[in-house]
């Protein structure tokens, strides 16, 4: 049960920040490290102090509940909550803490609702958790999409413990204060942090103000750096390549024979192994019974991420495939800083094959050799090579930059031939589309799932006819199955008849909506005060051709409307992005060629307007209409 004491008389000052539904009046995170007798190890007190003013109904609904993830929590030492309203302060004497027990500790949390919140209230809570520390690398995020005042970050520890810390995106530098006898106190604070909101094509999460920190060394062992990449390289090497049972080795050999690996080239071996594992083995962190036992994995076909890594590593080494085991971050959340050593970047597994210079994402079902999730590229990674030393082996780590794939790896080509029937009684469209690379990562693997007759929706979408009144007369598709996943482009052919779409009427004139034939294009027409640079998901190239015959007796006088030319060069004078459209006419036949490309993932803020113009050029083309009138 909760109780609220009577309101205390207090002169409450509400903060007036016009246009802000929420203002954080305080955000303090304090981490204090100490040696705990009971756990016989270093543990931390983690204290959060927040004061949040809510100025709108929706804001109340968001902030009148609070959730505490309990993955590393050993106990809640202190929890105090109060609500400050214009009428007084309501202390909540006993917080009704609810427990959510998830399938594993990472999905478990404790939470509570906050009583008595009204518009204009300030919600204030402070709590201290006793936790297993994350000494190998940790992060505190301070900026959000709300205005935040009085931001403080503190670490307290014994003076023999030394941390590496780094502030990002303009957050105050962390300073060390050794004035207190026997204590190190690291701190950073900022009185005011402006809200940062997500922007299209902007690396939002990675641009937020934050601190990364990691323990460096503990005196007196000043030379023994802790949690280094070298140590990790050795540990992972041992973990994934440590001896496995004879039975497991026999099973691996049998599988290798079944997959006919010995007769294949290195790249074929890798593809065959990858395809076998991704098609047959499920990955679930809820797999609990000896999940990393290779013999059991091959029988039950269920394992966790580590188990699947181990299976890959052993299949590769059994079949003499040279590989580096890698780890990296997802740059849509946070980009790995090659200058700052921390295990916190290392959240996704990958492999690099030096023999063929390609990467692979072993745990990602929608990706295949050469195509790792694009947000893992244009990023650094830690890569570990296993080196034989006598009878044992050691892991050697190195930082590599994972280059993004070039623009022509991700192509989308559309070719539409328009046949005008009779006196505009109907249009017949002969549509061909060819897509490659990341453009098909969300189509090819799923297409197998969709029963024959139900593919209509996907097909309509791909032929750009989903909202149109059309009849699909013919359709076929090549390379739609997983066998050709990423290796061959997905090819679609469709023949469509319509007497109601893609052309309008105005008296005796017909208006061919040629721009709609390339499908809806993204627009960025609304001008807003841009804060973030551009970082695309992947480089890409679009080529479209549209051809048609002008029927006997008609003329089209506005063909020149189709000419567009907008290209930009990078600092080396190379074309970096553009949208170009032009036409040729031979007799009655008109052929329109359109090309749009982005050869660079990143464009600085100064180039944002250029980027916007190219994006909008494609959207402008959507509006192109040709007027057919009797000559």
């Amino acid at each position: 049960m909760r109780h609220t004491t009577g309101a205390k008389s207090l002169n409450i000052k509400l903060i007036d920040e016009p246009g802000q539904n929420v203002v954080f009046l305080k955000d303090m995170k304090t981490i204090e490290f100490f040696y705990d007798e009971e756990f016989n190890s270093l543990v931390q007190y983690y204290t959060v102090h927040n004061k949040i003013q809510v100025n709108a109904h929706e804001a109340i609904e968001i902030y009148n509940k609070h959730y505490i993830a309990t993955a590393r929590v050993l106990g809640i030492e202190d929890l105090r909550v109060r609500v400050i309203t214009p009428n007084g302060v309501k202390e909540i004497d006993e917080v009704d803490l609810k427990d959510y027990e998830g399938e594993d500790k990472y999905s478990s949390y404790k939470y509570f609702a906050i009583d008595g919140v009204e518009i204009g209230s300030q919600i204030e809570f402070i709590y201290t958790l006793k936790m297993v520390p994350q000494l190998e690398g940790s992060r505190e995020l301070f900026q959000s999409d709300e205005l935040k005042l009085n931001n403080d970050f503190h670490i307290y520890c014994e003076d023999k413990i030394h941390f590496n810390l780094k502030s990002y995106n303009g957050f105050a530098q962390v300073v060390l204060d050794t004035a207190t006898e026997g204590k190190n106190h690291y701190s950073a604070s900022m009185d005011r942090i402006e809200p940062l909101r997500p922007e299209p094509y902007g690396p939002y999460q990675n641009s937020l103000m934050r601190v990364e920190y990691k323990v460096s060394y503990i005196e007196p062992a000043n030379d023994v750096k802790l949690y280094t990449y070298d140590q990790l390289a050795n540990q992972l090497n041992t973990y994934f390549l440590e001896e496995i049972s004879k039975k497991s080795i026999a099973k691996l050999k049998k599988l290798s024979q079944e997959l006919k690996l010995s007769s294949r080239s290195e790249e074929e071996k890798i593809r065959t192994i990858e395809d076998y594992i991704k098609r047959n083995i499920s990955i679930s962190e809820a797999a609990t019974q000896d999940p990393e036992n290779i013999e059991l994995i091959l029988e039950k076909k269920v394992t966790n991420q580590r188990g699947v890594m181990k299976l890959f590593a052993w299949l590769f080494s059994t079949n003499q495939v040279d590989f580096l085991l890698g780890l990296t971050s997802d740059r849509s959340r946070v980009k790995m800083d090659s200058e700052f050593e921390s295990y916190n970047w290392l959240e996704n597994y990958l492999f690099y094959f030096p023999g063929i210079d390609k990467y692979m994402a072993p745990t990602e079902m929608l990706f295949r050799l050469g195509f790792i999730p694009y947000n893992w590229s244009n990023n650094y990674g830690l890569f570990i090579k296993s080196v034989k030393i006598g009878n044992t082996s050691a892991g050697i780590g190195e930082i590599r930059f994972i280059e993004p794939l070039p623009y022509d790896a991700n192509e989308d080509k559309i070719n539409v031939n328009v046949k005008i029937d009779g006196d505009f009684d109907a249009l017949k469209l002969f549509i061909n589309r060819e897509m490659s690379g990341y453009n098909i990562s969300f189509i090819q693997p799923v297409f197998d799932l969709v029963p024959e007759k139900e593919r209509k929706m996907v097909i309509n979408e791909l032929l750009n006819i989903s909202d149109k009144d059309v009849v699909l007369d013919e359709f076929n598709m090549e390379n739609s199955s997983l066998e050709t996943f990423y290796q061959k482009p997905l090819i679609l052919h469709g023949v469509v008849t319509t007497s109601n779409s893609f052309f309008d009427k105005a008296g005796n004139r017909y208006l061919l909506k040629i721009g709609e034939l390339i499908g809806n294009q993204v627009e960025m027409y609304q001008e807003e005060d841009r804060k973030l640079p551009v970082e695309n998901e992947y480089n890409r190239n679009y080529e479209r051709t549209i051809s048609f015959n002008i029927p006997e007796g008609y003329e089209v006088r506005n063909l020149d409307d189709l000419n567009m030319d907008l290209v930009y060069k990078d600092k080396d004078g190379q074309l970096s992005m553009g949208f170009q459209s032009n036409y040729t006419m031979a007799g009655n036949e008109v052929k329109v060629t359109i090309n749009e490309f982005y050869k660079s993932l990143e464009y600085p803020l100064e180039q944002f307007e250029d980027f916007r113009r190219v994006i909008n050029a494609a959207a402008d083309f959507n509006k192109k209409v040709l007027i057919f009138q009797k000559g």
Partner: protein
Amino acid sequence: MIVRPLIDFLNRNTVLQKIIHIKPILLPVLLGCWFNTFAQTRDGEIGQVNDHRENVIISIDEAGALKIESRISEEVQYFNDNAKLFGEEAVSYSASFAEITDMQASTSVPTDKSNKYKKIAVTDFIKSDNRSDGVFYDDQKKISFIFPALQAGAITSFSYTKKYFEPRLWGHFLFSSLFHVKNCVYTVTAPTTIRLKYKVFGDDKSQIEFRQEQKDKNTVYTWEAHDIDKITLPKGADGIWHDEPHLIIYVESFTFNGAEHSVLRNINDLYTWYHSFTKGLEDENKDGLADLVASIVEGKSTEIEKVEAIYYWVQQNIKYIAIEDGLGGFKPRTANTVFTRRYGDCKDMSNLLYNMLGMANIQSHLTWIGTTRIPYSYEEVPTPMSSNHMICTYKNDGNYYFLDATDQYNKLGIPTTHIQGREALIDMGNNDYEIVPVPVVSPELNQVIDSATIGVVNKRISGSGKTSFRGYNRLAITNNLENLNSVAKQNFLTALLRKGNNKFSLSTANTEYLANKNHDLVINYDFTIDDYLIQNQDEILLNPHVSKDLANSYIDTSMVKTSIYYPFKNISANVLTIQIPAGYRVSYVPENNSYAGDDFSYKLDYRHVGDKLIVEQKITLNTLKITPDQFDEWNTMVKGLFSAYRESVVMQKKH
């Protein structure tokens, strides 16, 4: 909300569960086409339910209490390797009302020898909490496990026993599934001293065979079905209870030691049970609340005004947070608790309203109701299956006011959208109740009228307009306008008022009556549209259908097989006045066009008045549901509209 019976219903159907447990990474891909991957055709099918059965045994123990125990089993066969996606399985239940035991699961994997399978048993079952969507805290638990070695040809089977602690919450079975169902059997074995009542619901009940046999002192009731088509859900899960074949069964009464004990014989029994949760909810001290009520009604002369003021206060100040802990799922918290906390769920808000009105000396009534996702009347199904919601009813001069504070922006006198057309079970006091139908709000009361005047300057359209939003149409808009930050609000308004193409740009927008629920919400605005009109030598071509409502609503009858549901009846009217540019005359105007049906209609009129051309477009939806037999008629209307939208006006330069 008292949603428990429906949650259990969903939880029982294991394949339905899977749509919730699909790996997040696949979601963006599958969102569009997921439901349709389970269509009636057999080619490319992922799997089928070979056998789904539930055997219920009811008995009366020595103390005279009903015991209901059910053994549930399901066997699914997979046809291709995508089976792997269906490995994660979970059974959920309410820990306060049921217990799950003896769970067994395994996969049978085909071997090299024909017709020989190797069975791999599941060894790990993980029990965890399972908070329902939109609920802050409840007692839902789930037991999860992974089927190993799923592949083409694999057969999974699993079974468990479920014991019901509360007999009133037992009794439903869905025959269909998201896979084709080969065999499906539901049996109930009960002594003849127990009287059961049952009914099969759904669009097509013809495949379900029923038989009743006598075995010693027991009666065995059996429902059996074969080759049930899978569920296609292009329009969300709400339709399941209306369309899909399912059984509702419950205990009316039983005889023990010669005496008859009633359970759910009729609405009165249901009312009596519900009433047991709302009795005696008195607060010890509610002075603070009484003071508040006094200040709210101060200066209000009529009772209606007082009701309105109190209703609006609760809507405005009490936030929706649902806590469903055991019988707490049925029992409201006291008025003072909810007032102090400033949050509660539907029953908490209803009880607060009831108490606050009482303090103002106004009689009101706690009311149980089922939302529109429930298809049964109380007469048909006098069980908790018929309700999932609570409101407060106020009666004035024979008129009923259904007060539902869970929607912050709803106005007095109009029911919330999700209870329209449903039955209210109203507690009249003195152990008496009334069943009153909640009206469906007429389309006129939800109309949106947009009037805009446009002119042409160079090749740009510029104009000003006014849109008024009435009834349900103003709810979501009010919510957005009150809560969005300035950038998001501008984007929202641009999308809301957009005309012509996406180069529509809003220069100003002013809102009136945002806080006045009793008035239409009005937005006055100025705008420009680029690249929309076509200048062709000495003529201007202009498509006057700048808002193409319903243009994309063609129903593909090869894919959609069940009714389509709408949250409310609606009128959408657009009046566009085109100022003909000086020096131009109108040389072509399309013909007027209309379609008139009982449930849906449109009207498109062109009028030439002086130097103005007025284009009026009005679309009426006068139903909450379009049934499959109406699809052709609907498509005829949409095609007509689509065709009319293609016609442009021509303005010619005068010579």
